[in-house]
């Protein structure tokens, strides 16, 4: 059933591959303008969830609904999925993505401004003429974010975007996401292992564990008891100066 403000909904959905169920009875509503974090141990079905939301995998049963007709999804994959041997400059990739959306498939004059604006928003203007193989991990990830934004998405779906990034690049990227969310009211769904990065940013967190999706307000979901239960290892959560800190107790 569609609820007010709902952008996307799973109803009693079973997700998985032919002959293999990964997530059972998932019911979840994504509201427009929210920032949602999806977390969970390796192999619990985070990528399956993302692929299903992108319609790359069919539902095994239940219902999945995008309430906005023609809702455009901006997808930001892990940078490892991108092949940097393609002889493209940063600017080329964004222009090609834009002009692939319309007919004829040539770049239109007014779209230069759109590409420039997105490059500025994602802080890659200085990289415009660099080719893909010269970009660092953080720069490539910002380019992938820009590519997702250039099509003016109503929702951004990010699949472990900060995986394999160093601490500073990761924090910078998360700050950028937060800024885009606040300034442009873009709905964010981010799959991550970095629980700390969600604190103070995500309004809702979904935890995948034991074939189920549990979700709720960030403070409730990122509690010591729940995380300990999900990860099967003692997790300590404490607050200091109004911030939450998450750490693992003892040897992992």
């Amino acid at each position, binding site marked *: 059933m569609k609820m007010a403000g709902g952008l996307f909904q799973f109803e009693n959905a079973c997700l998985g591959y032919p002959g293999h169920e990964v997530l059972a009875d998932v019911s979840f509503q994504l509201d427009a303008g929210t920032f949602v974090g999806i977390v969970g141990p390796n192999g619990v079905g985070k990528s399956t969830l993302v692929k299903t939301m*992108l*319609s*790359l995998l069919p539902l095994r049963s239940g219902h999945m609904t995008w309430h906005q007709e023609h809702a455009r*999804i*901006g*997808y930001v*994959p892990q940078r490892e*999925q*991108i*092949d940097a*041997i*393609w*002889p*493209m*400059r940063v600017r*080329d*990739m964004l222009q*090609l*993505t834009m*002009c*692939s*959306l319309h007919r*004829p*498939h040539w770049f239109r004059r007014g779209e230069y401004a759109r590409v420039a604006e997105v490059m500025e928003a994602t802080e890659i203007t200085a990289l415009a003429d660099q*080719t893909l*193989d010269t970009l660092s991990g953080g720069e490539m990830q910002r380019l992938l974010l820009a*590519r*997702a934004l250039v*099509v003016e998405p109503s929702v951004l*779906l990010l699949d472990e975007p900060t995986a394999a990034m160093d601490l500073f690049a990761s924090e910078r990227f998360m700050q950028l996401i937060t800024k885009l969310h606040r300034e442009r009211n873009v709905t964010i769904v981010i799959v991550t292992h970095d629980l700390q990065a969600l604190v103070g940013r995500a309004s809702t967190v979904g935890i995948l564990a034991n074939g189920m999706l549990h979700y709720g307000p960030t403070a409730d979901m990122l509690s010591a008891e729940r995380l300990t239960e999900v990860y099967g290892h003692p997790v300590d959560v404490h607050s200091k100066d109004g911030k939450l800190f998450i750490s693992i107790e003892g040897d992992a």
Partner: protein
Amino acid sequence: MIAGLQEMYSYSFMRYALTVGVFGGGMLAFLGIFVHLRRIVFLGAALPQITALGIALAVCMHLPPLVGAVLGGLVGILLLSTSGKSGHLPTEGWVGLAYATGGSLAIVVLALSPQPDAGALRFFTGDILGTNRAEALFAVIVAVCTACVFRLCWSKFVVSSFDPVMSKTLGLRASFWNALLFLCLGFGLASVMNSAGSMLAFGMLIGPPAAALMLFRGFPRVIITTVALGSVSAFAGLTLSFVFDLPGGPTMATAALFPMLPAWIYRKIKR
């Protein structure tokens, strides 16, 4: 020298061979950019073998070899694009099987053929000088059609090849654009294979784009260099084969692969 070239190309068989070399070679070189970037070079090697099998079957059944080349290329594309989906054997395994089966069966089928037409066997020896007007015209038509399709839909081909997942989220039908790319590849290979054999077809598909990708890091320069190298090497190879009485197809293929050497040295020095 100019007079010598004029005399050389006053013969119609030389002009037809040059037409196939320049148009077919330039087109295959261009398509080879995608073969390299999508990392499907082995598929590019297997397709000519299946096309060769198609030609051999056509010869055996007394059909025009061109019909066999086109059908062989299309069947090969269909088989290879749907292979590897069962999960029991990786795609590379299927491609390898196609390469070995196509190449060996083509020879067996020709050996079983009661009286193969000598002219129809050109694709084995790479004797491009036997090209006729219809074959040259076919190569031109395929090259022009391929150029038009890519000019109109360039961004679709690049986006769907570069990141199929992203292209699906944009609403692009990646499978359709893949099929169209492979269709162009199938017709392109058939047009060159029929006249000059698998050696020239594969040489053009691999050599010029490899050199261009080593030299440049931007699509416009890579494309211009690739097509220019493909066409110029076809001209140079054909001319050299005439002057030194060498087999046309293999000489053109060698000329197409030659730019790899200076490009590789340039890349090493630059690094």
